[in-house]
């Protein structure tokens, strides 16, 4: 018994020694590795191994790797979290995944690093020349310096039942709806007739609830397609606060509102637009993304306005019965007063990667960001993670167009990217956004007349701009 115990002791000691030796070897092998902490979402976290491999394939040195810490799924919560971390001067996470809708306030407050002084010139050129202009603009300071690398983009399109529309006598392929935008008037006729023929519960499903999605996106693009703007055109989207014109009470914006009311209430509405059809239920006034998508995915709606992830889901559900088209136009670009408005327009969503200025691994983090901007990594995120790259040049390649499911709709998405309209994000946008959403929703719900509500909104926005 004693012998047995002694033998066991010697075996244990031997095994422990061997393991310690191996552990020491591993530790010494890892001593030269720099790990960059990346604040991301659960998808990034689940795929951290593949992301590291893709970064190395894109040229990241082998002695640098990333680890992911998961932040909230709710964009506003992430923003608050970052604000607290950066105000506290934390040196980690090194890389921060930021919504393109709120990167600019962090730039304005000087809380993230200026990448124009950090990234290689080739990376800077690649980002500025190849990526969608709107994506780059939402990651840049007013002087043009780049503060974040666009990671992926979100661009809404109209997704519709091509089989139903064709049965109703229309020819989407022959008229090339996928890349040649149709007018809102024609769109309303198509949806109205198809709805009647198919006897579906709803025609066009969209998001008109009083929330950030209405001000940043749904109404922003609706108004832009009519040639309207919150602050007098694209040049003033990001400021200067208090010195830019406020143009929400101009005719294009009123027309967009009247059209929205007609879609929901038809010609019985006192402020309806002649020639436009009733195609949406009053329920859209309460719908955000979830319920509006359900209506289409359940087969209860002819068409919906949705983001790329919805397109992917719908394509999986409906296959070649699904049609995709850019957001229709109210007036043509040459009929619009402000440069960059009129014609089709898609509200810009998506996320950027920014560098924590307090990072103690600054150089290695910059290497990661250099690799992110390269084509092999863009292809990986598109193919493996389902993130639509903001890289317009890459999206035109054969390789991108061959990616399963996405390939069929890439031209429409590219057009949406080229005509994307960012939300006018400044430090006062949260206040302005809620004021806009409340007024627009109230007008669409027939609670306030368009002109009167927009005049009141103009006054409110003036007060907000004057409050800083």
């Amino acid at each position, binding site marked *: 018994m004693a012998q047995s115990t002694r033998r066991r002791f010697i075996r244990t000691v031997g095994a422990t020694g061997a393991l310690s030796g191996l552990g020491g070897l591993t530790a010494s092998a890892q001593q030269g590795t720099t790990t960059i902490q990346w604040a991301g979402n659960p998808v990034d976290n689940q795929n951290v191994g593949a992301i590291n491999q893709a970064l190395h394939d894109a040229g990241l040195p082998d002695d640098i790797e990333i680890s992911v810490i998961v932040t909230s799924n709710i964009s506003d919560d992430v923003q608050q979290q970052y604000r607290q971390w950066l105000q506290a001067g934390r040196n980690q996470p090194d890389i921060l995944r930021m919504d393109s809708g709120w990167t600019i306030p962090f730039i304005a407050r000087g809380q993230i690093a200026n990448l124009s002084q950090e990234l290689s010139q080739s990376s800077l050129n690649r980002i500025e020349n190849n990526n969608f202009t709107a994506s780059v603009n939402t990651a840049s300071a007013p002087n043009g310096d780049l503060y974040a690398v666009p990671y992926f983009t979100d661009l809404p399109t109209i997704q519709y039942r091509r089989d139903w529309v064709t049965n109703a006598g229309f020819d989407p392929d022959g008229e090339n709806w996928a890349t040649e935008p149709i007018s809102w008037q024609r769109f309303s006729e198509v949806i109205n007739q198809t709805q009647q023929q198919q006897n579906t519960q709803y025609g066009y499903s969209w998001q008109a609830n009083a929330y950030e999605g209405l001000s940043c996106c749904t109404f922003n693009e609706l108004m832009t397609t009519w040639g309207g703007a919150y602050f007098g055109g694209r040049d003033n989207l990001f400021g200067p606060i208090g010195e830019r014109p406020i143009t929400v009470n101009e005719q294009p914006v009123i027309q967009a509102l009247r059209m929205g009311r007609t879609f929901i209430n038809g010609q019985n509405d006192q402020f309806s637009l002649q020639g436009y059809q009733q195609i949406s239920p009053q329920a859209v006034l*309460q719908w955000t993304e979830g319920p509006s998508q359900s209506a289409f995915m359940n087969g209860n709606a002819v068409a919906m306005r949705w983001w790329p992830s919805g397109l992917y889901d719908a394509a999986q559900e409906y296959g070649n019965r699904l049609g995709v088209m850019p957001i229709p136009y109210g007036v043509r670009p040459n009929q619009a007063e402000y440069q960059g408005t009129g014609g089709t327009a898609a509200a810009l969503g998506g996320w950027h990667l920014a560098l924590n200025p307090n990072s103690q691994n600054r150089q290695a983090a910059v290497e990661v960001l250099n690799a992110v901007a390269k084509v092999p990594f863009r292809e990986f995120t598109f193919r493996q993670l389902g993130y639509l790259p903001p890289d317009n040049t890459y999206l035109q390649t054969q390789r991108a167009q061959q990616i399963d499911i996405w390939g069929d709709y890439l031209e429409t998405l590219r057009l949406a990217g080229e005509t994307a309209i960012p939300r006018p994000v400044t430090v006062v946008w*949260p206040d302005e956004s*809620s*004021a806009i*959403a409340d007024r627009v929703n109230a007008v669409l719900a027939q609670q306030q007349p368009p002109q009167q509500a927009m005049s009141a909104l103009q006054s*409110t926005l003036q*007060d*907000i701009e004057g409050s800083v």
Partner: protein
Amino acid sequence: MSEYSVRRAIRYSASWTERLDEEQFAYLLILPAFLLVGAMAFWPLVRTFELSLHADNLFGGGYVGEFVGVENYVELLTGERDSILGNPFLSLSQPFSSAIIVTLIFTVVSVGFETIIGFGQALVLDQDFRGRRWVRVAIIIPWAVPIAIQGMIFYLLFQPGIGFGTSLMQDLGVFTATPLINSVDSMIILIVADIWKASAFMALLILAGLQSVDRTLYKVGRVSGASRWQMFWMITFPLVLPTLMVAMLFRTIQAMRVFGTVETITSCSTVPTLTCLVVDTFSSGRYGTSAAVAFITAVIVGLVATVYIVWFSDVS
């Protein structure tokens, strides 16, 4: 040496704690607990007040800007901050005063109904009948449901195309087609949701009060020829009143801080309560303004609680 001199000699030779009289010594004993509670309860309030004396800082890296004294309060109360506080409820002209009125209406109506319904439920549960245990469970379940789930239940109930609530109420001619964006409809839905959940809480507290009533008093009442109503009004109600006041105090404080129910069922833009203003201004990075609204809210809640407690001591 006289007895007095001996006692004095002992007292002077004792440690300083032993020289304290009983009342002073009692205060000394509770001082650590008092300091701890003070730190936990009052320090955040003091810090909030201190923050509220600073300007919003939207451009700089810090939380708040320069010291501005009571400017935030003055601008809130005079309506100069209206543009950043969102839409007032209905036609009430100023968002801040509107939020006070909305919060008070919500509190008075919901707590009033909860008290009546809770009292009724407690009287039923106080009876001895078959299946009483199951009835208790049924009454308690809504209280056990988390606020987020409660919110989703009512949100889905009044979401067109999903729940049946909207069409049902519309058929009855009560609601509009989109009740969750209509302020009046939403307010009614919120009050009903709150009553659904919180009546059980009232019922449980009142039941505890009912069960502590000396049953022999009813026998005396019956012998004296008192009717059921007289026994309720002369025996049950006065004896349960202290418990009822405590329950109402708890519920009133909770109702005045309402936020989760509002945000999940409708939204703060449809029914803006005081807490909604705190959260909205905080979310937009206006920490000074947010702190000022939070401090005023705390003061209002504190005043209401004080009134209750003073009234409660009279009742006791």
